[in-house]
């Protein structure tokens, strides 16, 4: 599912949220939960906290769906919501946030893979490690841009930053990544 299809499906869910909230929330969960948990896990550093944040976000949506239905861009709204909830959980637990606990790689390792897939997974793990080596604020911008497919304006809005700050963080991150990813590109 590409970005346009994803946005259309998301809007379809949200249109039903006020009339058929239970089925719309179930559909919204299937559509967004994994991506939201992936992003939350990059902030929280572990998957259980990310899942708790997801539950909190969905509870808020169920209690009062007016805010997300009124939002012009629902996907950045969800990203911002889960970010806020994750940070709230982290503050509550007084833990320091760290970048990505390798949740995706742990899960994908559990499935048997053919050799080519294994090689790809190895490369992906190394790329994720390179992403982890970035400063967290730079890595967050890169992840939101490449994984969550937000525009720079939406990233700035989600992180409560100016677009200039987002741009400079992204530029520094990409410069580092280009050097680090060079062996893989060859």
């Amino acid at each position, binding site marked *: 599912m590409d970005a346009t299809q994803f946005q259309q499906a998301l809007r379809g869910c949200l249109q039903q949220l006020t009339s058929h*909230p*239970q089925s719309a*929330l*179930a559909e919204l*969960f299937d559509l967004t*939960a*994994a*991506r939201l*948990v*992936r992003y939350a*896990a990059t902030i929280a550093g572990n*998957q*259980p906290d990310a*899942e708790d944040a*997801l*539950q909190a976000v*969905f*509870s*808020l*949506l*169920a*209690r*009062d*769906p007016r805010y997300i239905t009124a939002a012009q861009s629902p996907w950045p709204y969800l990203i911002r919501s889960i970010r806020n909830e994750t940070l709230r959980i982290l503050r509550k637990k007084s833990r320091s946030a760290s970048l990505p606990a390798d*949740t*995706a*790689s742990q*899960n*994908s390792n*559990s499935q048997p893979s053919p050799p080519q897939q294994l090689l*790809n997974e190895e*490369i*992906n793990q190394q*790329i*994720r490690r390179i*992403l982890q080596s970035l400063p967290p604020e730079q890595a967050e911008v*890169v*992840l939101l*841009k*490449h*994984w969550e497919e937000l525009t*720079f*304006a939406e990233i700035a809005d989600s992180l409560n930053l100016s*677009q*200039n700050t*987002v*741009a400079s963080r*992204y*530029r520094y991150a*990409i410069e580092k*990544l*280009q050097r680090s*990813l060079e062996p*893989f*590109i060859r």
Partner: protein
Amino acid sequence: MNSDFLRIPEPSGPESELLRSAASLPQLSPELRNRVLSSCRRQIVVGRTIRTTQQLAVACCSIAAVAALIWLILPGSDTLNRPAARTTPTETVLPTSVLPVGNGINLPGPTGSPGNMAATTVTPTPPAPVSPKTPLPPATPTAPTQP
């Protein structure tokens, strides 16, 4: 404000492909979906209750405000407040010219209000004369004081 203006390098080229390919979705906990959706079901009920309560409160406040406005704006409303003032007993001051001069005293009734409008004339009674024949009680002898 677009990316050109900010001179943000748009993600393109092999490095962005590599970054995108590294984005694999995590496997969620098996019970997460049920947990989240059951929590949602509860919150839907809570949300409906809150909204209904809010609407009721707004309706009650509106009705109270309209009633208060009607009470204030109604033309006879000020006269409605007056009976309370009218029913309050007031002291009636009689003109002094009605009172008989030098013939008696106008005594108030037991409740403090003037009883009869006609003045009650009280004739002063002379003091009873002391009879000279009435013997005085004997004086009690007192003990002489010792020097």
